[in-house]
C-alpha cells in the first residue's frame, strides 16, 4: 500500500512538471501550427539561467522569475527572428527548431559543462510533510504539484476570461478570421510564444529544484511534451493536463513495478490513443 501511494504521489508530481512544460508546447502549436522542437532546450536554458541567478543573488524566487523571463525572451526572439519569416511552412519551421535545439544543447554543454546542478530552495521547502500512508513526503514535490495546479488554473482563467486569451482561442480556431477582424495577429503570436516558452523556462527552475538539472534533460522533457500533446490533443490545455496525468502516472508506476520496461507503458498509451482517437483525447478533428 505504501509503495502504491508513494508511486501515485510521485506520478502526480511528475505529471505536474510535465503539464508545466507541455501546456506551453501545446498552446504554441495550437495557435501557430508550429512544432517547436526546441521546447526542451527552453526548459534547460531556463533552468541554467535560473540557477545562475539563484546562485548569485541567493534568492530562489528570483531564480524562478529569471527562469520564466529567460524562456520568454528566447521564445519571443525565436518567433520574431525565425518563425515570422517562414509562416505557413510547417516542415521548414520544424527543421529550423531541430537545428536550433542541436546548437543550443551543444552551447549549453560548453557553458555549463556536463555537471549536475542542484538548486537551493528556501528552507521551508526542505524536508518533508507528513501525509497518510507514506508517513512523510518531500515538501518540494508537493510544492511542484500545487504550483502546476495553480498555473493550470491561471492559464485557464487567462484563456477564458481575458481579452488576449479570447484572441488566442479565436486564433486557434481560425487564424485568418481573427486577422480579418482587425486584431494584430503578430502581437498575439508573440504573446503566446512568450507565455509558452516562459512556462518551459519556469518549469526548468521548478523541475530543477525538485529533481536536478543536467545535459540530456532537454530531450527528456521534449519527449514528454511530445507524447503529452499527442495523447491530450494539440492546442488544448485541458488535454495537456489529462495527457500529463496519464503519462506521469504510467511512467512512475512502470518504474516502480517493472523498471526495465517502464517506457513501454508510455509508448503503449500513445499508440492506443492514436489507434482510437488520432487527434488526441481533447483534440478536434
Amino acid at each position, binding site marked *: 500500500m505504501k509503495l502504491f501511494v508513494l508511486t501515485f504521489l510521485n506520478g502526480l508530481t511528475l505529471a505536474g512538471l510535465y503539464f508545466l512544460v507541455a501546456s506551453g508546447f501545446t498552446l504554441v502549436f495550437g495557435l501557430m*501550427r508550429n*512544432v517547436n*522542437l526546441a521546447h526542451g532546450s527552453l526548459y534547460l536554458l531556463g533552468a541554467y539561467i535560473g540557477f545562475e541567478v539563484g546562485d548569485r543573488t541567493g534568492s530562489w524566487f528570483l531564480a524562478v522569475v529569471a527562469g520564466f523571463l529567460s524562456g520568454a525572451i528566447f521564445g519571443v526572439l525565436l518567433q520574431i527572428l525565425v518563425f515570422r519569416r517562414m509562416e505557413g511552412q*510547417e*516542415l*521548414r519551421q*520544424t*527543421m*529550423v527548431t*531541430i*537545428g*536550433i535545439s*542541436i*546548437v543550443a*544543447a*551543444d*552551447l549549453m*554543454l*560548453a557553458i555549463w559543462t556536463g555537471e549536475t546542478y542542484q538548486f537551493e530552495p528556501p528552507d521551508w521547502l526542505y524536508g518533508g510533510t507528513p501525509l497518510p500512508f507514506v508517513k512523510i513526503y518531500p515538501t518540494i514535490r508537493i510544492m511542484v504539484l500545487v504550483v502546476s495546479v495553480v498555473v493550470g488554473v491561471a492559464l485557464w482563467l487567462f484563456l477564458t476570461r481575458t481579452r488576449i486569451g479570447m484572441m488566442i482561442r479565436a486564433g486557434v480556431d481560425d487564424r485568418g478570421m481573427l486577422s480579418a477582424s482587425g486584431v494584430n495577429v503578430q502581437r498575439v503570436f508573440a504573446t503566446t510564444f512568450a507565455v509558452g516558452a516562459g512556462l518551459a523556462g519556469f518549469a526548468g527552475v521548478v523541475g530543477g529544484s525538485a529533481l536536478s538539472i543536467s545535459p540530456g534533460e532537454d*530531450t527528456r522533457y*521534449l*519527449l514528454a511534451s*511530445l*507524447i503529452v*500533446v*499527442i495523447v491530450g490533443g494539440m492546442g488544448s490545455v485541458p488535454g495537456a493536463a489529462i495527457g500529463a496525468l496519464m503519462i506521469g502516472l504510467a511512467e512512475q508506476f512502470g518504474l516502480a513495478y517493472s*523498471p*526495465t*520496461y*517502464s*517506457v*513501454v507503458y*508510455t*509508448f503503449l498509451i*500513445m*499508440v492506443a490513443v*492514436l*489507434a482510437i482517437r*488520432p*487527434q488526441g483525447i481533447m483534440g478536434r478533428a
Partner: protein
Amino acid sequence: MSTVADVMPGTTPRWLRPVLTYAIAAIALVIYPLIVPDFWAFQIGAQSLFLGVIALSLMFLGGYGGMVSLAQMTIAGVAGYLVAIIGGNSLNFGPAWPWWAAVPIAIAGGTLAATLVGVIAVRTAGIYTIMITIAIAMAFFYLAQQNYTLFNGHSGFASILPPHVFGIDWRTPIAFYFLSLLVAVLSYALVLYLSRSTFGIALQGIRDNARRMRALGFNVTAHRVAAYAMAGFIASFGGVLLVWFNSRISPGTVDTGPIFDILVIAVLGGMRRPIGPFVGAVIFVLLENFAIDFIDRERFNTLIGLCFLAIVLFSPDGVLGLWDRLTVLIDRAGAANRMLQRPIGNADRTQPAATGRPIPGRR
C-alpha cells in the same frame, strides 16, 4: 529529333550524358579505395556510404512519400541490435548464429519494425508524422538504455564483426568499403527503380494530393505503410553495416544525436533526388573528421547544427539545390553567348532556352 544543341560540336548528345556520368562515377568509386590510405577508404568512404544508405531511406520516405520520419536511425538500430544479439557478441549473449542466418533475420526484423512504425505514424498526417516518429525513436532509445534483459542496457554489445566469406575478411578497410559500396549501389538502384514504378508514381501522387488519389481509388494508407516498410528495408541494411563498422552497438547509437544526424545528412544533400543523401553523408563525414582542425572537437555539434540551419534557411533543396541553380545559370550564360555569336538571321529565340538543362522538378 535532334536539336541544334545535340549536333553542336563540343556538346555531348543528351542520351550519352547519364551513361557518361554513371561510367565516370563507377570508375571513380572503384578506384578510390585502391589509391587512398586505409583511413580514407574505411573511415571516410565506407562510413559515408552506409550513412548515405540510411539517409537514402529517409529521402525515399520524405522526398517521394512526403513523410519525414525521424525513426530511420532507430530502424537501423533495430537491425543492428538484432545482428548483435543473434549473430554473436563478446558477452556470449544470444544464440550466436552464423551471418547468413543473423543478417536476414536482422533485415526482416528491421523491416517489420519499420512497418509497425508506419502503421502508427500514418494514423495522422503532415507535421504530426515528425512528432510521432521522433517520439517513437526517443522511446526506443530509453527502452534500450533501461532494459538489461534484451538490450544489455547502457553498455550494449561489443565485438560484433563482419564475417569471413569467400576467404575474404570483410573487416579489412578495402573489403568493407566494397561491401558498403555494393549495398549503397543496390539501394540507390532500388530507390530509382521504385520511384519510376507504378507504386512510386502513386506514392508521389499521394504526396502531392492524397484526397485526389483516394478519390481515384488508391488505397492511400496501404501505399504509405508500404513506403515505410520499403524505407525500413533499406535502412536495415545500413544498420547492419553500421554495427559492423563500429563493431559495437549501444543506446548511444540510437540517441537523439544520431537520430537528428540522419535528418541533417538528408537535408544537407537535398531530399529531391536519391543521390542527395550520399552527397550529404560525404559532407557530414568530412566535417566530422576534419572539423577538429578548425574548431574544438567538442563543438562539432554546433558546427553541424549551424550548417544544417544555413541549408534549411537559404537552400531548402540542400547542396544539390545550390548545384542545380548554379548549372542553370551557367547553361543560360552559355546559351546567351552562343546566341550572340550566331548570325542574326539564323537566331531562333526559342532554341537556346531549350538547351538549358531543365530544373529537376518534384518528379
